[in-house]
């Protein structure tokens, strides 16, 4: 067994090396072909909505990149393979991408099980897996080809805690969180930070993503007698909780994580999300040029539609990929090395994004404190609600 194994390994890597050199030569010769990125994400299945949002963000960024002359004169393009966020499919897609010599970099997947199941394949084959929504603390520990611009929850949650405790003056909190790896990690960072700032955690409740009915959960919350509700939610469940909280007569201040930042949150929540506080990474009136360019471009391209957090992540990720490929070219290892070299890439989320080489993540996300006023997200004016 071992014999066969080693032989095939050697044979395989030799073949790959030969194919690699042959192809990189071919690739450099043919500059009319676009530089191709692989995207593994959900286009069907229960998370399909996020894949659709990614596409919107990617396409807008690609328009900008093309208008700016492309990658040293070449066009940038992506090949989106639908994984349904299913690990079985994401590993097959991973093999497809790593054995397709045109792919210089991979983006995604969406959920942790799908992304991290594919990581060993990308790592062994030496293709960067750029997971821009992967906040799982172990994602970048998969190897030196795993990079992420997902805002670390160790960064984000203390900002939200500061907003709720220091700014809004909440002292006794109820935390409702999605019971996923993201929600759980976020909850722990939030609780630690909030306690450090002097607040008391009255109750924490984890709910599964498919949950629609929160009335009984809210009775538990009411009985814990908090003065504020913290939502570590996505926009659809966040809107449901806010609505039902108001329906059962809870009048406490609600403060939500940036993942609810979406026009859909306002649409789905209606009057119930009025006065909800949201800690975000950017806001519509943000004077930063990269934000203004993003929002104006997005509205223009998509008939006046307001972008949301997932659109912004995807937009930033594509811009980052372009910056990296500009430095690294089409050689996969050079692309990996380019992640260490790339500096101050304009970013909606980070302002200017530079990777921390040790953690392979970007630190220092921007912070904006918003509140919903008259059905719109607005910068919080410091007035209590």
């Amino acid at each position, binding site marked *: 067994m071992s014999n066969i194994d080693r032989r095939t390994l050697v044979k395989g890597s030799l073949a790959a090396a030969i194919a690699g050199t042959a192809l990189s030569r071919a690739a450099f010769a043919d500059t009319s072909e676009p530089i191709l990125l692989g995207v593994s994400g959900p286009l069907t299945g229960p998370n399909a909505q996020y894949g659709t949002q990614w596409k919107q963000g990617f396409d807008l960024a690609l328009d900008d990149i093309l208008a700016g002359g492309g990658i040293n004169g070449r066009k940038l393009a992506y090949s989106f393979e639908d994984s349904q966020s299913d690990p079985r499919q994401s590993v097959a897609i991973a093999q497809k991408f790593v054995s397709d010599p045109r792919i210089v970099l991979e983006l995604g997947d969406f959920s942790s099980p799908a992304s*991290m199941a594919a990581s060993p394949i990308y790592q062994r084959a030496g293709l960067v897996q750029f997971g821009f929504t992967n906040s799982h603390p172990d994602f970048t520990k998969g190897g030196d080809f795993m990079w992420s611009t997902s805002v670390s929850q160790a960064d984000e949650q203390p900002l939200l805690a500061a907003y709720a405790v220091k700014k809004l003056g909440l002292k006794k909190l109820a935390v409702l969180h999605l019971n996923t790896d993201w929600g759980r990690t976020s909850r722990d960072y939030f609780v630690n930070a909030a306690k450090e700032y002097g607040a008391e955690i009255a109750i924490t409740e984890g709910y599964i993503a498919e949950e*629609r009915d929160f009335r009984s959960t809210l009775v538990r919350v009411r009985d814990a007698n908090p003065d504020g509700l913290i939502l570590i939610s996505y926009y659809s469940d966040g*809107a449901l909780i806010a*609505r039902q909280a108001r329906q059962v007569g809870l009048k406490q201040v609600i403060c939500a994580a940036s993942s609810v930042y979406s026009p859909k949150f306002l649409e789905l929540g209606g009057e119930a999300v009025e006065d909800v506080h949201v800690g975000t990474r950017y806001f519509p009136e943000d004077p930063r040029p990269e934000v203004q360019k993003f929002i104006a471009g997005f509205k223009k391209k998509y008939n006046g539609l307001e972008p949301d957090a997932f659109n912004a992540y995807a937009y930033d990720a594509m811009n980052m990929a372009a910056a990296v490929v500009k430095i690294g070219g089409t050689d996969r290892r050079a692309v990996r090395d380019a992640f260490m070299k790339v500096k101050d890439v304009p970013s909606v989320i980070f302002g200017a994004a530079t990777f921390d080489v040790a953690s392979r993540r970007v630190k220092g996300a921007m912070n904006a404190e918003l509140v919903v006023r008259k059905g719109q997200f607005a910068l919080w004016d410091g007035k209590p609600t």
Partner: protein
Amino acid sequence: MMSSWLDYTINGLIVGNVYALVAVGLALIFGVSRLINFAQGSIYLVGAYIGWVAVVQLHTPLPLTIIIVAAASALVGLIIERFGLRPLQNSVRIAPLLATIGISFVLDQLVMLTFSPNPRALPSQLPDVRFQVGGGTIGPLDLLIAGVGLTSALLLFVFLRYSKLGWAIRATAQDRDAAMQMGVDVNRVNQAVFGIAAALGGVSGLLVGMYYNQIDTAMSLQATLKGVVAEVVGGAGNVPGAVIGSLLLGLVESYGVAVFGTSYRNLFAFLLLVVVLVLRPNGLFASARQAPPEPLTGTFIAPSRPVRIPRWALLVAAAIFAILPFFPVSFYVLQTLINAWLLGMLALSLTLVAGTIGQVSLGHAALLAIGAYTSALLSLTFAIPVGLAIIGGGLMSAALGTALISPSFRLRGHYVSIATLAIGEIVSLVILNWESVTRGPIGISGIPPLSLFGYELVSPTSIYWFSFIVMVVLALLQARLLGSHLGRSFRAIRDDDIAARAYGLSLNRYKSLAFIFGGFAAGISGGIAAHLYSYINHETFNTQQSILALTVVILGGLGNVVGAIVGAVALVGLPEVFRIAAEYRILIYGIVLLLLVRFRPQGLLGTM
């Protein structure tokens, strides 16, 4: 504190109301066709989106909206009945079940492609007044939902009992052949039932969508799951029972949240189901006079003539797959086949349990999860070599799986499927909540890669051979088992359990043996997957996996060892082949599945 209990009770009743709308439709169809209509949730979805078009685009007033939704959904129901199910009425009993799964794929995908997967707001058209009840409030929509649920149950009850068509429906439900001899137009009865159930399903989607001011394409499966639980608790096929079952389900969930917290909610829903099934298999409200819900002998899985594949052809096929990596095939193809071999192991397990001994399991992914977690934790925590850890996973899955399923050995037909569905959900929720062992939602990362005798198997080629050899060994063992006295006993139990018992076979012992062997194969598959993925959490092995496994087994031919493997290759391969179709691929997959069921209901290779 007393007032809180009142609130929990009210909230339980409110959400129970919501479940009732779906459960009543399911109960009606089950009552007549003895079919769990997995497409009911999809009709609910279609109704919600038609409602959205009516409300948001056409600005219709509420009564007109309800009429539009009911009419359009009824039409969808009629189409399903005429083209999806009627052609199957003389084929194996299990074929319509598979057809409804295929139909639900197609409907969900059509809605997703038409309306995009983004959630939408579906504003309520009722005045926004709230009445104070206990510590909370209820609104007019709560009352409307309760009204629709109760009225429809009552109307159906009266209709079934006192109208001529109702008599025909009940006669058909009791004995289809006898009803036909008495001149009942069975097709018309089925049409009426599907039309009514679909209209109800569509209206419930509309009302629930308004209730939450939110509709999205993921709501279909959840609605079906909760509806099935409520319906079975109330007594499958019993319309008023379905309403009471739904309210009970709502209450149990609400009290579960009250006592243990939100993350235990569904655990209580499914525990309720298992307890009811074990204690009162016909549901809480089945009357003693009622005819048994399943035929006494095993017509659920009709035997057919299996396709005989000559031994040399199997050997040639095995040899081709064994030497495949020597040919210039891409790693992508190899990885896809690795997935097929892993699914093949699961299908071997399920085809034994479902096909050979007749216990159609809808919770088989739980066995994968048990095997995967055991193997991952053994190798990570106790540094046990991966090869041994995987075998440990297989053994744990065999032991724990059999222990969990054993209380439901006395169940038959659909009830086994529903009990196993519940057990599958329970395992997944225990994994989510038992954090000290399973690390809860964070999952287990850094699982060591596959290795054998100290050599790591990391190249796709070596993983391919490893999984292929394991699957072939399991398949050979199973084929040997089926050819033995034991295999004959299994089939005897499936075909006629009363005769088998009269012959002196101990049913429970044989069922346990089947689950032990099947659990082992599934556990091995899960164990290998854990080391292949390096990261698993409670979502890795989900309900969709269980449904996929059942689809594979039915497609291949129940009990058919080669069929299970052929089915696995087909169902892993087809969605990959259709990748070119991007967003449309699951739609195409659903249509292909429907066509296969239509023209080959006994499975590609036939039932053994």
